[in-house]
């Protein structure tokens, strides 16, 4: 399997629980990168804290495991100094949208060229299944035993509103679509936000009686549909999957280079 060339086999089997969706995201991401043929020495993966963030330990790229919620800021620093590198920032739902919420919207607004993957399992798995900003109203969590009264974010709408130039959503059931979306997101010049619905059978699944990991995958199949499908018109409760935004707008590093040129010319003009 060529994708094995992209992992650190010595750390396998990985520490994620049996049936965890994050392994499927890793699987799809490796296939996307293999299909794109990017040299692994030209990829930097920056992650924060959480189950999802452990992904950076398993891939054989340049990797950084950083502060909770701040992965995008570290990634911004790397991208600004080495814009030729491909930046991938996997984050959990809590990491990206609770403690890292501000970093997320402002990185999206700047349109700096990197790919943020929001691995949405609707819980804080690593710390014991507390509710996250994406758990959703009426769900159960260890910290919401009588049901959660917090409403959740729609990651796609949030990323769109924050100005991300590439916004997409898929699930761990739809692995082929997920691989295609990740390929498009990595290739996109600008900030790409990809939400992946990723099952947590141990906490979210068990608390909310969602059955086996495979049952949770089938739940994604039954409760999502492609963008603008007939099924969506018939049942507005279905969550749409696909690429919502893909537009070319000025990218941050390129624009910064232009500013440097302008400033140099201005200084030269003064000294002459």
């Amino acid at each position, binding site marked *: 399997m060529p994708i094995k060339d992209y992992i650190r086999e010595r750390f*396998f089997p990985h520490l994620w629980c*049996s049936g965890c969706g994050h392994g*499927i995201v890793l699987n799809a991401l490796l296939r996307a990168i293999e299909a794109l043929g990017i040299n692994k020495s030209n990829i930097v993966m920056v992650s924060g804290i959480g189950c999802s963030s452990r992904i950076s330990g398993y891939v054989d790229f340049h990797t950084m495991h950083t502060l909770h919620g701040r992965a995008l800021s570290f990634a911004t620093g790397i991208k600004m100094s080495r814009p030729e590198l491909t930046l991938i920032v996997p984050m959990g739902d809590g990491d990206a949208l609770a403690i890292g919420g501000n970093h997320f919207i402002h990185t999206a607004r700047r349109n700096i060229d990197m790919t943020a993957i929001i691995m949405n399992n609707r819980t804080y798995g690593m710390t014991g299944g507390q509710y996250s900003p994406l758990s959703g109203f009426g769900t159960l969590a260890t910290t919401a035993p009588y049901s959660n009264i917090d409403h959740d974010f729609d990651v796609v709408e949030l990323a769109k509103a924050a100005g991300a130039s590439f916004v997409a959503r898929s699930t761990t059931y739809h692995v082929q679509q997920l691989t295609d979306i990740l390929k498009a997101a990595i290739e996109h010049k600008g900030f790409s936000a990809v939400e992946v619905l990723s099952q947590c059978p141990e906490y979210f699944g068990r608390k909310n009686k969602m059955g086996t990991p495979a049952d949770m995958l089938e739940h994604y199949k039954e409760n999502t549909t492609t963008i603008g499908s007939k099924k969506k018109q018939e049942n507005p409760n279905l969550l749409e999957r696909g690429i919502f935004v893909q537009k070319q707008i000025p990218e941050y590093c390129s624009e910064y280079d232009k500013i440097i040129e302008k400033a140099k010319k201005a200084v030269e003009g003064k000294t002459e």
Partner: protein
Amino acid sequence: MPKLKLKEHRINRDWCKGCGICVQLCPKNVLELDDENKAVAVRPEDCICCKLCELRCPDLAIEVITEDEKKP
């Protein structure tokens, strides 16, 4: 696309955690979990090489090897 012919299911028993995703989602019911809770291809003759088990395995533990592929 020409029909793929199965050579073998290569299952890494050290990496498999027995989550059962491949077993439950196989369209042809080829796989089962054994006594040690590891995936095994018990009906390989029914396999249509769709590779969904390989793509959906969270543990990167299963590979579907087809006749035309040269894999180590």
